[in-house]
């Protein structure tokens, strides 16, 4: 856990802090761990958080959700400030910070990266189609998957509640960025991810161990499917007969089992996909050759997510070697995102405000990768969303940020800010210059050591 230098300020003073530093010397400054930050702060107040190595602007602005909704539009309305404004700092709720403190990251090497890379590959094939070429796939594509977010959550050690919030935010951000994904696939991915997280930390799993883990995991679920365990016993017994037979014979046996599963009473979303994906992975354990077939089965069985379960099981059987598949795709995903998270382009809160009136793809957002918008869904967990080809990618000028249209209420709020807009504009220029030159702003230091 990282400690933060924290100052509590009023909404009125937030702008000033962003631009020139503290308004008065009476501000309380403290070095606090996330779990030391008070659960309740003064009505309408905000917290500004700094990291030692980021002295120019606060690392994050935190407040109750309704306060954030009021403060962010004001910041966004500032002329000459970056757009999105949350590309400069994070915008968190107070609950977010406390959830951060409850995270319990797994021991290094215990994260089931291979299972999650499998989920990413499966999700991409479900969303893009069987023409997907793993060798041509970039880690940026993987960052656009929900499975990537689920992997980030596992590595961060997020709990069930926080995971639910992140998935919910991802779903809403997907809507705002017109990312097409079915709710059934989202549920299946969440279920498969939960299963992968519960697995023992052995280097690789045999298909028997996977089946046994599936049975145990299902029986522990509150909404566990009655048929699932019984069917799985049948599957485990049939799988025993697959030794010393050709791949074609194995295929025949497994297809017959898949038909049995299809006819069974499995109702709950995710369970059918898990079972069928597992069976497909046994045609050639550890192979990814059957992605197109698993995609075809999704269509035949109207069950999106079979490819995800298939690729996850292939990953579990292969172990860490799986990360080298597709010209080292898994390693690239890990190194260019999962293990070294990128700075987001925008917070989920700001995206919500912006996306209310205008299509996100039409907004003149400054992003680190032109066609992708990195959204921080919950603290330190980001996802990328495709927002179309930007002008600068087509050889033209990069889109310039423009001011945000304000309604009358927001204008009135802004007028109440003690510093005039003219001065703010001048200060904003100073701030922008200092950010560009990576120098600390002149004037009083914003925090002290505890």
């Amino acid at each position, binding site marked *: 856990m990282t400690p933060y230098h924290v100052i509590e300020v009023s909404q009125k003073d937030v702008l000033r802090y962003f631009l020139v530093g503290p308004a008065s010397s009476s501000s309380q400054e403290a070095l606090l761990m996330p779990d030391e930050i008070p659960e309740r702060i003064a009505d309408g107040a905000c917290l500004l958080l700094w990291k030692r190595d980021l002295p120019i602007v606060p690392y994050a602005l935190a407040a109750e959700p309704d306060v954030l909704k009021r403060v962010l539009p004001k910041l966004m309305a500032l002329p000459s400030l970056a757009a999105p404004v949350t590309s400069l700092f994070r915008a968190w709720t107070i609950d977010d910070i406390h959830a951060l403190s409850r995270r319990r990251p797994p021991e290094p090497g215990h994260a089931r990266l291979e299972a999650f890379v499998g989920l990413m590959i499966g999700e991409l094939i479900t969303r893009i189609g069987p023409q997907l070429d793993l060798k041509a796939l970039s880690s940026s594509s993987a960052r656009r998957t929900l499975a990537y977010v689920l992997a980030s959550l596992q590595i961060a050690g997020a709990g069930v509640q926080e995971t639910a919030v992140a998935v919910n935010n991802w779903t809403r951000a997907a809507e705002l960025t017109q990312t097409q994904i079915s709710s059934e696939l989202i549920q299946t991915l969440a279920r498969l991810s939960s299963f992968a997280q519960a697995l023992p930390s052995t280097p690789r799993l045999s298909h028997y161990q996977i089946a046994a883990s599936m049975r145990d995991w299902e029986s522990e679920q509150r909404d566990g499917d009655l048929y699932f365990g019984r069917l799985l016993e049948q599957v485990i017994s049939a799988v025993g007969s697959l030794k010393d037979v050709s791949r*074609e014979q194995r295929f025949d046996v497994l297809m017959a089992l898949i038909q049995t599963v299809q006819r069974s009473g499995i109702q709950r979303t995710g369970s059918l996909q898990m079972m069928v994906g597992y069976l497909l992975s046994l045609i050639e354990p550890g192979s990814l050759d*059957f992605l197109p077939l698993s995609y075809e089965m999704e269509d035949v069985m109207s069950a999106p997510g079979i490819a995800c379960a298939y690729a996850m099981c292939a990953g579990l059987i292969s172990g860490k070697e799986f990360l080298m598949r597709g010209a080292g795709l898994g390693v690239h995903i890990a190194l260019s995102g999962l293990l070294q998270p990128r700075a987001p382009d925008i917070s989920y809160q700001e995206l919500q405000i912006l996306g209310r009136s205008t299509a996100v793809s039409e907004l003149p957002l400054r992003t680190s990768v032109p066609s992708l918008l990195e959204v921080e869904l919950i603290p330190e967990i980001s996802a990328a969303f495709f927002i179309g080809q930007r002008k600068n990618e087509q050889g033209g000028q990069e889109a310039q940020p423009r001011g945000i249209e304000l309604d009358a209420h927001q204008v009135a709020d802004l007028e109440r800010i003690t510093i005039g807009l003219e001065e703010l504009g001048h200060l904003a220029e100073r701030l922008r210059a200092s950010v560009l030159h990576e120098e600390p702003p002149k004037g009083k230091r914003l925090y002290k050591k505890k």
Partner: protein
Amino acid sequence: MSEWWVDESQLKGNQLEVLDVELDKDLAIFGPPGSGKTNLMMLRANHLNITDNPEFYVVTYTSLLAEFMRRGATQYSFPGNKIRTQAKLFEIVLGDHGRMIERRPNEGFTDYQDRLFAAMTALIADGKAKNSFPALFIDEAQDYSQAQLQVFRHLAKNITLAADVRQGIYKTENCLDGFIRGFCDPVISLKYHFRTGKNIIAVADQIMKDKFDHIPMLDTSQYSEESQKSTAEVEDPCPLGDQIDKAVDRLAKQLKVYPNELLGVLVPRMEELAQVWERIKVAPALAGKVTNTRERDFDPSCPIWITTIHSAKGLEFRCVHILSAERIDKFNERARRLAFTAVTRAKTALVVYHHEDLLPFFSAALRPGTAARVSRSQLFGKKA
């Protein structure tokens, strides 16, 4: 789809010796099907290309094999157009000396090849074209005549040959021994082979048992049955139409079972090829997946290739279907080697279809008898 080596660690036994032979030596590489002799020859050609990038050629017996090898060559540094058939090589040499001949209207390819060869021998008789190339790499060398080998000898300063006498399906006499004895040093005989499943190798061994100095291959197989169990099956006799229908069903399944792999349908003669192609190309289950190697619009990217056994030499398929297998008898004294070549094109699955009785050696190889004691009553009637 093919399995070309990408790493030194994939080489085993005396395969590595081939890479150590100096480029200015003549080399003959012998080995059973799937021993990697063609691949080693390609590595040697790549070695020459990296060292000096001279004009050299890898010579194949058929254009289909040239096409197949070009696919493998994409991972090497030399361009695919250095892989040529014998006819194309002769055209290059004749053209260089202003002695190019034109193919006559309606002239058969065999007749054209004969004229090309005659033009080449005339050129050589005039003392021309000696050591035109620093090296030639001759694949399937067992299929060339003594005279053809002498032409290669004349054209190149050094020669590398890859051969297996058991796979000589274009002629009956063995010209290689005398030719090699004359100049090739070293001669490397590869012991181990990797490509073909043991259940298929057992059939191939049985076909060649005690013939052509055949050394049984089963003991030297490095194929892992644990990771990919192989099968060799023979279907009950039925007319060709039914054979095709059965093969289509099986191929449709194999497309799913072996994605990204090449599947082969082999027939003994062009007559059968025409019949099989007419029916198989309209099979809905294989739509867009099947191609005829003898057609103008042959598409090597299709996963199922329909071809004759002769055209398939040097190729390899994950699964092979041999249709009208009884027609191998039309090749008389070459029938055994033709059957051997056809069977050893398969890596993991072999299915043989026929209508009439198979040649006895082929039938015996596919349906080995049981060692169990036979009762008298079993001697009567067709069923055992």
